[in-house]
């Protein structure tokens, strides 16, 4: 995929290749949230997501020499994150007892997901009610890994379908098929909310 010659990320990566940590810090600050979001929604463990997000950026710095400037940096970055995420999921499948111990509530240093404070006025429609968020997360967890990742990458709106297909390592048509099937499954799970459009539910008293 063609990269514009004046792409700021490419310029920053050129500096990172020379060991410039200031340029690296700019990239970390820019992409940490999207990477964290992807990893959290895939792993459903805030602490593990943060560890893997840090590992992703460490790999970016250590293997900066492997970055090809004719590709988008975000594609390369998300590919690294995806590989680390899949390794973790495979490790969990091999050692399911470890994954049970790693539940967010059991780890003392776990970083809790942000919850809207019901006492403070929050802009309407910005954040979902926690119950609905849990339902969406459950629906996402029920998807096969590839469909889940395709949906989460597509959600960001910053990645094109070409980039998503490159990150997933499959063809463009296969990527669109994954997204379509994933969305169909999500719609089945969330039908009541989708039909009414009523997700600004008041918090239970």
């Amino acid at each position, binding site marked *: 995929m063609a990269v514009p010659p004046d792409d700021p990320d490419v310029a920053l990566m050129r500096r990172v290749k020379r060991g410039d*940590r200031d340029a*690296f*810090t700019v990239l*970390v*600050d*820019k*992409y*940490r*949230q*999207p990477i*964290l*979001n992807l*990893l*959290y*929604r895939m792993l459903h463990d*805030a602490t593990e*997501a*943060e560890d893997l*997000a*840090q*590992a992703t*950026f*460490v790999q970016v*710095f*250590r293997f900066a020499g492997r970055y090809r400037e004719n590709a988008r940096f975000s594609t390369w970055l998300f590919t690294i994150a995806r590989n680390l995420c899949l390794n973790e999921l495979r490790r969990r499948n091999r050692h399911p007892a470890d994954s049970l111990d790693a539940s967010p509530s059991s780890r003392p240093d776990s*970083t*809790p*997901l*942000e*919850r*809207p404070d019901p006492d403070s006025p929050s*802009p309407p*429609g*910005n*954040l*979902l009610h926690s119950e*609905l*968020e849990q339902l*969406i*997360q459950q629906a996402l967890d029920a998807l096969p890994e590839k469909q889940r990742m395709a*949906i989460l990458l597509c*959600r960001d*709106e*910053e990645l*094109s*379908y070409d980039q998503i297909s490159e990150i997933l390592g499959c063809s463009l048509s296969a990527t669109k098929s994954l997204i379509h099937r994933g*969305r169909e499954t*999500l*719609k089945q799970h*969330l039908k009541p*909310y*989708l*039909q009414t*459009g009523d*997700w600004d539910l008041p918090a239970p008293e």
Partner: protein
Amino acid sequence: MNPKNQRHPDSSPPLRKPLPQKEVERVRNSLTDPATRQAWEEEHRLTQLLHHLPNASAHPRFTDKVLAALETPSPWQVWLDSWLARPRWHFAAAATLAVLVGTLSIRFAQNQQQQQLTQSVLAITRPVQEVAVATQLPPVEILQDFDAIDQMRRLSSLADEELLACLEAPAP
């Protein structure tokens, strides 16, 4: 990328690219059908639900922790450093062993080549040797009684009846 935790407040998520006018018209026309309209609205709502999922919480010193992690050597670097930290005689022993193995390997390869060369030379020379043996002529003196020996060979296949009769005759 929006650096703030709030994502696209009070707005629908932006489209990846604007639809062509023809496509917009086609969609508008299809929305007059109630079933199509409902399906479209469900798709739109799902997109909004996914888009408005809250962000994962990032540690306030996330970037500092990443930079600190860069100071920690990778596992292979740790292994390399521990290997390099070994006593010098380890290197001498390893170098000597490498030279020995290399020399033996070269000698073995040369030996194999020599054997193959020998085999190929033998394969060529054996027929030549056989031909050379075959072409040696016997001395002329052996051939002087050739006719007599040849006659005897022919005659030996026939029974000598006179001799048999003499042998069978009773002794006086």
